[in-house]
């Protein structure tokens, strides 16, 4: 935020007009990234400061075709899931998305998943158990139980995000979020977990619910939260 840099007054800062999370602007665009890095490093040679400069180039907007399909509902189930539990529906989604996730890993040569130590199905079961009001079982001894819960949730978010980005079509920051939270059983599960942990007597778990589970943008749109 430019206003934050104005308040902190670091010696040299380049304000960039990009989405939070993308300080270099555009993934997989080396030339664009290089222009941003060079502009930032050029500030090191200014003789006096503090310097707060605006980067002039916007990240290109995605070219969304009006006939674009696949952004609205990339998951469709052949089997009748009407009597399935929420966890069973999440497991079915994971099964259906796995081929896309494997394709994503193959294309990029990497994945941001695999941090929690849980399989995707185990991560879903872990979150579902807590969403149903059961206490967290002991799992890892190197981090707090609430952090295992957060990593399990992040594992699901990352799996879904990486999988859907491998599918045909244009996927924007907002469309990926809106799809996950608005149209998937996994989003429904994490909303249920949010409702449960908001009432937690454990301060760290409540902090997780308030700050680290559902994005503010989603809480104020799909979640229907007012200011």
């Amino acid at each position: 935020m430019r206003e934050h840099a104005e308040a902190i007054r670091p010696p040299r800062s380049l304000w960039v007009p990009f989405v939070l999370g993308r300080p270099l602007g555009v993934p997989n665009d080396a030339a664009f990234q290089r222009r941003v890095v060079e502009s930032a490093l050029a500030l090191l040679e200014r003789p006096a400061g503090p310097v707060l400069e605006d980067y002039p180039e916007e990240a290109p907007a995605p070219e969304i075709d009006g006939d674009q399909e696949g952004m609205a509902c990339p998951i469709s189930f052949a089997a009748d899931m009407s009597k399935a539990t929420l966890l069973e529906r999440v497991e079915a989604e994971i099964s259906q998305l796995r081929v896309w996730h494997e394709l994503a890993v193959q294309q990029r040569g990497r994945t941001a998943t695999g941090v929690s130590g849980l399989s995707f199905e185990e991560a879903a079961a872990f979150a579902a158990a807590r969403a149903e009001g059961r206490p967290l079982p002991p799992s890892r001894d190197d981090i707090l139980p609430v952090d295992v819960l957060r990593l399990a949730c992040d594992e699901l978010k990352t799996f879904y995000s990486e999988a859907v980005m491998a599918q045909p079509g244009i996927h924007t920051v907002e469309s990926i979020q809106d799809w996950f939270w608005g149209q998937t059983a996994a989003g429904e599960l994490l909303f249920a977990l949010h409702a449960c942990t908001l009432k937690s007597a454990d301060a760290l778990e409540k902090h997780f619910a308030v700050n680290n589970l559902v994005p503010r943008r989603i809480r104020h749109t799909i979640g229907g939260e007012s200011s």
Partner: protein
Amino acid sequence: MVRLADLPEWEREHMLGKIPNLPDFGIKAWVNGGRLAQRRVAIVTTAGLHLRSDRPFGQGAARCDYRVLPRGTPAADIVMTQLSTNFDRSGFQQDINVAFPIDRLNELATAGVIGSVADFHYSFMGAGSPVTRMEDKAREVAGLLKKDKVDAVLLTPV
């Protein structure tokens, strides 16, 4: 976009609410250095990155920790466990350089735009307030950067 005017009111209020807790470094922190083409550059990010084999970032005292990212670490071995859920991660999932531009630094060193790239880079978990709680760890990292003969740092907040 990270423009206050483009944000909905609830997000604008949230961002403005952070300002009273921000430190003001001001002109006292100013230092001039040599030419960029002779500088040794490191990246310090607040993206909550670490090696796949490292302990993830977490709540409690672990919030102020940092992790070391050695130069030459394959992108596949770098993961993100930032606590905040309020920034985009799909960019990082596609390309680590969008938050940790190590490939760009290596290219700039090869092209002679900068002198060299540090052997070690660092990541904090930048969520939470006040940021001054990280001062002790930040000073620790500054000492390590000096030992690596670093004289320029590219900070990449998310």
